[in-house]
């Protein structure tokens, strides 16, 4: 039994590792693509981050970002890549629930579900209130 368990644990390590790698790779490619579009358009202009203005509303919300990215704006595409990056650890937690369920590890199905609930609560709650 012991070796059996470590084998399924090992399998889960590999699947979670691959999930994280795909998420990171995908978001990096999107950010890179957006970065090229952004630099081609704005590379020669001057930066100023001394004064905080806050991002325009189009780059603050999921809906706005999608619209901006579809309009082929460099900044919108980068922001969309960042959304994929933020989603990666969330997807990892969500996947763990299924992974532990497959291992019949009820305790950790509960543990992972609590983490996902708290995560969802703080993500959704914060976007609403701000």
């Amino acid at each position, binding site marked *: 039994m012991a070796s059996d368990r470590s084998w399924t644990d090992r399998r889960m390590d590999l699947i979670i590792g691959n999930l994280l790698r795909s998420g990171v790779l995908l978001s990096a490619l999107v950010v890179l693509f957006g970065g090229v579009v952004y630099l081609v358009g704005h590379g020669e202009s001057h930066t100023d981050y001394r004064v905080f203005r806050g991002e325009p509303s189009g780059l603050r919300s999921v809906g706005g970002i999608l619209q901006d990215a579809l309009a082929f704006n460099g900044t919108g595409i980068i922001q969309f890549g960042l959304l994929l990056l933020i989603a990666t650890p969330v997807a990892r*937690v969500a996947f763990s629930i299924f992974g532990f369920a497959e291992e019949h590890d009820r305790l950790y199905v509960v543990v992972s579900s609590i983490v996902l609930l708290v995560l969802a609560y703080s993500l959704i709650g914060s976007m609403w209130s701000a």
Partner: protein
Amino acid sequence: MTVLEFSLLVWAGSVAAGFLGALTGLGGGVVLVPMLSLLLGVDIRYAIGASLVSVIATSSGAAAAYVREGFSNIRIGMFLEVATTLGALAGATLAVHISTRAISIVFGLVLIGSAFLSRRPRTKSERETPPDPFASRLRLNGSFPDVDGIRNYNVQRVPLGWTLMFGAGTLSGLLGIGSGAMKVLAMDQAMRIPFKVSTTTSNFMIGVTAAASAGVYLARGYIDPGLAMPVVLGVLAGSLLGTRVLVKAETKWLRRVFSMVIVVLGIEMLYKGLSGRI
């Protein structure tokens, strides 16, 4: 400075941040926030937004390798994430009511003190301990590929570790940065988890803690694409380098790097508390 020059400079700094972050389990904020705000004159809110993005990138990028190679312990990570995410909620609620400057000063002093504790390698008798009943029931004990072969370990003092992790989450909700240091210290010093497992499991966890607060930073307009783009790309490259080094590095050496970095973090925290900046 033109956008292109600025992006290249931030990219280079982010490579260093990702490298150190992946090696120590601390994320890249220790390097990134002072670099952006003190050296490049970036407003602190943009700097914090960029640092948050860098933590998620370091965590996911490096964890992909650490999990696959059997360093990060997924059960320890998930079990302690319950504490850190709940703590982060508590911290965000508390932040409105209490002075974060005083907390920064205390946390800074704690970090500088802990640097001496974490430098010392554990003796053989300290390593070979019987399992804690909690750890066995929660199936936290495990093994990892040490430089001289597979090593098994037993996790100690689970309730204390869990409580400290709740504190780490609260700190990250209050201060925004520095929770990685508390995570590594709780696992290494309180739970007596081998150092490489502690740093790589912390690294696995910090992405979730950061993702929990990413929504609020995005909605408040702290996350700027022009700044985040070189940060993400640089940090990812750096963190991949960091994972290559950690796998082969002697623990003694990693402890030294870690303790140096948390002294710097401690000084940053003192500066933040005393000046009200960063």
